[in-house]
């Protein structure tokens, strides 16, 4: 019973154990669809080798609501209500390219006051969107405090949007030819319809002061933190030519070093009247995408400050027929949405409803780079990259 183990036999046994170990297949885990960090219902099927990623395949479509099909049974004004639910964090900005496309097909000129109001609300939507990003991204990396501070400041911005449009997230404020009057607007209150609410200018200035203050706070709290640098610098670098080929746009593209901002090149809103800089990153890693958005908040607050001082008076909406019939034609209008380039390709056959509406959403293209960018990284970097792309599933899936 108590025979001694032959040492040569023992060595052989241990070799066998080692070679069996090395042939163990990698682990495939499923991240999502219900997961705290995936910005909605996104499912990632990740093949892992220990902590290294071999391949990540995103599975989307959980939030597909069929917007393009729905647009084929709605009149143009009704589509406005539908469309600001695509990217629900920056509600107002979704309507703009669509409305401008329809106005271009109908060859309507929008009064200046309406354009300024649209611009101010778009920039407020940009600030609101970026504040959510700037504070929820550190949360995913483990720091929970910036979220609370930034969301408090965001409340002021949302109150401004609500004061003008009546809605915090889904304003449905654009009308073909301009914007809707701020309060009233039904038939009995036509004469009492007001414009921008009283005190709007002063409140906006105060809110912009607070936005600048929170940007400074986030600068020290998050961007100066060594651990944040270690988690985001050099992580998931997206080279610029690849970003362009995949259609990555907005702050993600600028983070990769491509200094392209549609606000400077397209004329869907009067951005050429205002003075602002375009924030560009250097390397294309997660830190650059974060700092680009951080700078964009400051620039957006700057634009709002300039626009507030200059709003011209005038009508809020051009004269449009009661029943909107858009003449035959096709056009594509794109805008610099907070998440990237959002565009609408409107195909009209001369009726009250479009024949085809193609929605080009920013997050769809931004997300498509995921499999490429994650090869060879570690599991926590999935979270770092997902957060830094700043997408929402409503935008991806439409």
């Amino acid at each position: 019973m108590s025979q001694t183990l032959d040492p040569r036999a023992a060595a052989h046994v241990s070799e066998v154990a080692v070679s069996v170990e090395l042939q163990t297949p990698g682990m495939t885990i499923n991240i999502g669809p219900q997961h705290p960090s995936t910005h909605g219902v996104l499912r990632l099927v990740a093949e892992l080798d220990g902590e290294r990623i071999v391949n990540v395949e995103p599975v989307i479509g959980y939030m597909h609501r069929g917007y393009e099909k729905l647009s084929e049974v709605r009149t143009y004004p009704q589509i406005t209500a539908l469309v600001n639910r695509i990217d629900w964090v920056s509600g107002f900005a979704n309507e703009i390219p669509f409305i401008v496309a329809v106005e271009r097909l109908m060859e309507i000129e929008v009064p200046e006051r309406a354009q300024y109001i649209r611009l101010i609300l778009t920039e407020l939507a940009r600030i609101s969107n970026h504040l959510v990003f700037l504070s929820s991204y550190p949360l995913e990396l483990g720091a929970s405090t910036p979220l609370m501070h930034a969301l408090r400041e965001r409340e002021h911005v949302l109150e401004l949007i609500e004061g003008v449009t009546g809605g915090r997230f889904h304003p449905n404020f654009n009308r073909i030819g301009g914007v809707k009057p701020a309060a009233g607007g039904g038939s009995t209150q036509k004469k009492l319809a007001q414009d921008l609410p009283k005190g709007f200018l002063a409140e906006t200035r105060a809110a912009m002061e607070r936005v600048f203050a929170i940007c400074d706070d986030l600068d020290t709290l998050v961007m100066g933190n060594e651990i944040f640098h270690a988690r985001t610098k050099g992580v998931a670098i997206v080279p610029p030519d690849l970003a362009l080929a995949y259609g990555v746009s907005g702050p993600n593209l600028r983070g990769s070093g491509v200094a392209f901002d549609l606000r400077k090149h397209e004329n869907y809103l009067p951005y050429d009247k205002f003075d602002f800089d375009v924030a560009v990153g250097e390397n294309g890693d997660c830190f650059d995408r974060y700092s680009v958005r951080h700078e964009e908040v400051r620039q957006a607050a700057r634009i709002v400050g300039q626009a507030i001082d200059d709003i011209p008076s005038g009508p809020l909406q051009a004269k449009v027929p009661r029943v909107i019939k858009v003449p035959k034609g096709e056009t594509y209008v794109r805008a610099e949405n907070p998440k990237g380039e959002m565009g609408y390709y409107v195909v009209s056959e001369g009726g009250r409803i479009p024949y085809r509406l193609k929605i080009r959403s920013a997050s769809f293209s931004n997300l498509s780079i995921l499999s490429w960018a994650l090869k060879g990284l570690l599991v926590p970097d999935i979270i770092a990259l997902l957060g830094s792309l700043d997408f929402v599933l409503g935008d991806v899936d439409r």
Partner: protein
Amino acid sequence: MESAVADFAARVAELAGSESWSADFGNAKVRVDRSRWVEAVEAVRDGAGLAFFSFLSAIDWSNEVAVGDPLEETVEERYEVLVRLSSGKNNDSVTLSTDLPKNDARIQTLSNVYGGANWHEREAAEMFGIEFEGHPNLDRLYLTDEFEGHPLRKTYPLLSREIKPWPGMVDVEDMPSTENPEADSGGVAEQLPSNAEGVAVPSEEGDEA
């Protein structure tokens, strides 16, 4: 500005080897032959410097529609595949399009030219039933595996409208000074009253600040 768009459209048409282009409503559009699809896109990308892939999609031109308004004049039934390319440096941007016959809806894939075409083609394939030859993984993108049919085709009905009519017709009352809408029950679009929520009201009330 219009002429700049037209000039650009002409230049792109030349690179793509096509004769038909248009620049209406600020949209530079060049029609390309199906057999030259990939070469044309490559030539445009390299010759005009359009490195940014905006989107790829399709339009279903069909005379009988199950949703929406039918077309006023008959068209040749086809799928029109559109791809939008733009520059990463200025606002040059163009739509290239080609026609596919309905009984032979196949076209070469662009995923070797632009990486971003991969997902867009998957979406177009499942929504319209177009086959992209040479695509690495033409799996379902949005729809579940058990889904049958191609939703964005004009012959695919919007099922919720089949089951019950648009609820807004019941709720909206006439505004005092407007005409009654025609209560025609043919087609879905006619059910929508003209003074539905969101329709622009004439701007008599546009006040000064």
